[in-house]
C-alpha cells in the first residue's frame, strides 16, 4: 500500500455501560452510528440512555442529552440519583442536559437539527441523546421530512464523529419504515401474561456486525438496566473437554456401591420423585462429599430458604454451615415468584465461574422451569445450560418433583426438556409396606458406568443416608405403590 493510500475506517465500539448489552451488540455500539431506542413510556429508555452517558463520561467523553417534551431535567436527575451509575461530578461539564422543545415548536425539524449540531460542536460532545424523537416525528410535515432529518443527523454524526441515541415511544407499529435508515434499532418492551410481567430487549437491526438474535430479558434495579442475554445465544458452541476417567461419588457408601465406578465427572443427574422422598437430602449429600474433597459447591433453591435447608441437612449429619460461612459453599435462594430463567442461569453461571464450582445442586427444577414464559424454550435452554456446565467441569444435580405420591405411572413434567439432556436419571418414590411408609430409590440410567438397577429402600437417619439391600417384594406389586411380601395376602 502506498503512503497516500488510506485504510478503510475501522469503527470503534462504544461501551454502553449496560451489563449484558454489549455482548448482544457484538461488542457495543458502533462509533458515529445513529441508533433508535424504541419502547412504551416506562420501558427504560431514559435510564438506558443515561447509563450510556455516565459510562462514557467516566471515560472522558462529553455527552449532550436533549429532551423534547420529556420529564423535566430536575425530575429526571432526581430519579437517576438513586442509580448506581449516577455520578453528580459529571454534571454539567461532561453530561449536559438541554431542552430542544421550544426550538422544535418554533422552527420545526430544521431548527432542531441546527440546535443539535451547534450544541454538539459547542460542547465537544461525542454522545448525543435525543429523548422524545416521537415529538420530532409528529412535528415533521411528512414522513419524507422526518427521514430527511434522520439522514442529516446521520451525516453530521459521521462528519463530526458523534454517536447518537434517539429515544422514541412507539406510535402505531413499534418499528416504523422511517426508522430503517438508522444504524440500529433497539426495542424495549414489557410483556404480560396472566398477572406477571417482564421486560424484554430485542435488537431489531444492527449494522456493521452480527448481534444476538431474539428477545433478551432485562430488569431495572438500582444498578440501572441489566440485560441477561438469552442463554442459548451466548453459550460456547465448542465441544466440552473430555473429563476422562474422573469420577464423582455421593459419599454414601451403600449408595456408591450401586455405582462401583462412580458418576462421570461433569455429568448431569436428574433426581425425580414426589415431595418428601429425600431428593434434597441426596443433593445435599452430593455437595457435602464435594466439600470433603475440597471442591467448591453451589446450591440453588427456590422453595426452602437457606436457613431451613442448612437445618434440614444438619439433622441428618450433613454439617454444611461452616462451608457456607467460609465461602466454600454458596446458597443462592430464588423466590419462586417474579424470577426469570435467564436471570437464574446468569447468576448461577457467574458464581460457578467466579468460585470454580465443581458441584452444583439445583433443588426444585420445576420452580425454575415455571420462571419461563415460553414452554417451547425449556428444551433448548436446558441443553444450553447443561452444555455450559459440562464445559466448566461441573457435576450437576437437579431435583424434579413429580406429582404422584404412589402408583405405577411416572410423570415427567419437563417432557424431553431436561430428562433428555441428563445423562443420569434417578427415581425416588414412596411405598406403603406392612403399614409403614418407605422410600425407594432406583437408577434408571447412567452414562459411561455400570450400575445396580435394583430397587432399594432409601433410609434417612440422623447419621445420614443409607441404602438397603435389594428389595424383595414382587416388582409388579411395587409399582402400585402398595406392596406385599410374597405369600402375604392378608
Amino acid at each position: 500500500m502506498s503512503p497516500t493510500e488510506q485504510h478503510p475506517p475501522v469503527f470503534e465500539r462504544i461501551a454502553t455501560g449496560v451489563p449484558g448489552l454489549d455482548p448482544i451488540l457484538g461488542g457495543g455500539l458502533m462509533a458515529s452510528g445513529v441508533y433508535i431506542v424504541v419502547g412504551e413510556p416506562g420501558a427504560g429508555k431514559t435510564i438506558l440512555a443515561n447509563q450510556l452517558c455516565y459510562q462514557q463520561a467516566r471515560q472522558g467523553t462529553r455527552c449532550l442529552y436533549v429532551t423534547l417534551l420529556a420529564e423535566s431535567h430536575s425530575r429526571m436527575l432526581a430519579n437517576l440519583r438513586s442509580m448506581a451509575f449516577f455520578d453528580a461530578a459529571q454534571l454539567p461539564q461532561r453530561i449536559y442536559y438541554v431542552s430542544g422543545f421550544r426550538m422544535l415548536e418554533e422552527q420545526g425539524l430544521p431548527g432542531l437539527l441546527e440546535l443539535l449540531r451547534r450544541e454538539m460542536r459547542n460542547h465537544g460532545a461525542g454522545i448525543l441523546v435525543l429523548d422524545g424523537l416521537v415529538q420530532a416525528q409528529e412535528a415533521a410535515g411528512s414522513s419524507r421530512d422526518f427521514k430527511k432529518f434522520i439522514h442529516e443527523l446521520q451525516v453530521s454524526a459521521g462528519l463530526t464523529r458523534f454517536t447518537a441515541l434517539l429515544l422514541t415511544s412507539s406510535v402505531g407499529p413499534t418499528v416504523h419504515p422511517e426508522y430503517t435508515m438508522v444504524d440500529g434499532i433497539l426495542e424495549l418492551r414489557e410483556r404480560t401474561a396472566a398477572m406477571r410481567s417482564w421486560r424484554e430487549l430485542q435488537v431489531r437491526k444492527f449494522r456493521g456486525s452480527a448481534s444476538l438474535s431474539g428477545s433478551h430479558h432485562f430488569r431495572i434495579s438500582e444498578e440501572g438496566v441489566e440485560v441477561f442475554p438469552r442463554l442459548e445465544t451466548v453459550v460456547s458452541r465448542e465441544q466440552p473437554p473430555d473429563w476422562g476417567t474422573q469420577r464423582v461419588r455421593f459419599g454414601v457408601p451403600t449408595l456408591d456401591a450401586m455405582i462401583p465406578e462412580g458418576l462421570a465427572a461433569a455429568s448431569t443427574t436428574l433426581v425425580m420423585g414426589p415431595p418428601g422422598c429425600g431428593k434434597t437430602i441426596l443433593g445435599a449429600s452430593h455437595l457435602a462429599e464435594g466439600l470433603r474433597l475440597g471442591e467448591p459447591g453451589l446450591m440453588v433453591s427456590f422453595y426452602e430458604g437457606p436457613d431451613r435447608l442448612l437445618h434440614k441437612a444438619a439433622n441428618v449429619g450433613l454439617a454444611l454451615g461452616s462451608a457456607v460461612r467460609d465461602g466454600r459453599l454458596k446458597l443462592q435462594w430464588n423466590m419462586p415468584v417474579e424470577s426469570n430463567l435467564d436471570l437464574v442461569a446468569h447468576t448461577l453461571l457467574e458464581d460457578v465461574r467466579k468460585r470454580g464450582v465443581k458441584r452444583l445442586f439445583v433443588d426444585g427444577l420445576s420452580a425454575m422451569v415455571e420462571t419461563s414464559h415460553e414452554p417451547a424454550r425449556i428444551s433448548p435452554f436446558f441443553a444450553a445450560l447443561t452444555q455450559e456446565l459440562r464445559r466448566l467441569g461441573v457435576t450437576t444435580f437437579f431435583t424434579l418433583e413429580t406429582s404422584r405420591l404412589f402408583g405405577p405411572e411416572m410423570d415427567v413434567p419437563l417432557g424431553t426438556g431436561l430428562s433428555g439432556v441428563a445423562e443420569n436419571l434417578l427415581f425416588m418414590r414412596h411405598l406403603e409396606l406392612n403399614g409403614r411408609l418407605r422410600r425407594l430409590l432406583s437408577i434408571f440410567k447412567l452414562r459411561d458406568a455400570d450400575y445396580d438397577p435394583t430397587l432399594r429402600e432409601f433410609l434417612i437417619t440422623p447419621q445420614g443416608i443409607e441404602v438397603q439391600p435389594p428389595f424383595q417384594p414382587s416388582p409388579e406389586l411395587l409399582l402400585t405403590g402398595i406392596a406385599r411380601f410374597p405369600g402375604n395376602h392378608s
Partner: protein
Amino acid sequence: MAPATETVLVVDDEQGILEALADLLREEGYRVLTASHGREALERMAEVKPDLVLTDWMMPVLDGPALIERIRQDPALRHVAVLGMSAVDTNGLRRQHPGMDFLQKPFDIRALMKQVRKSLDAPRVQEG
C-alpha cells in the same frame, strides 16, 4: 406583594418550567419577561432592563454561565441582580462561582420567592 416596578427576567430552556415560574412570579406582583436561552435573554434585556435575572444553568445557544459573563461585562447591565437555578448539584456550582446565589431544582414556591426577594434586596454593583 412585590412592587409592580420590579421586573424579573426568567431564562429556562424547559418550556413548562419557564411558563410555571412566570405565572408564579406574576401572581406575586412582579413584572415578568421570559427567554428560553441566554441569547434570547440578552435580546430581551436590550429592550427592557430587568431588576433580576433568574437563569437556568444548562441551556442551548448561550448557557447560564455565559449569560452571566455577558451581563457582568456590559456596563449597562452589570448592576442587574442574578440568581442561578439548576437541576445539577448547586453546591458544586457555588464553589465554581463564589458570590453567586443558586436555587437547587426542584424547589418549592416559598423558597423561590424568598430567594428572589433576597437577591433583589441585596446590595449590588452600582450603575455607571
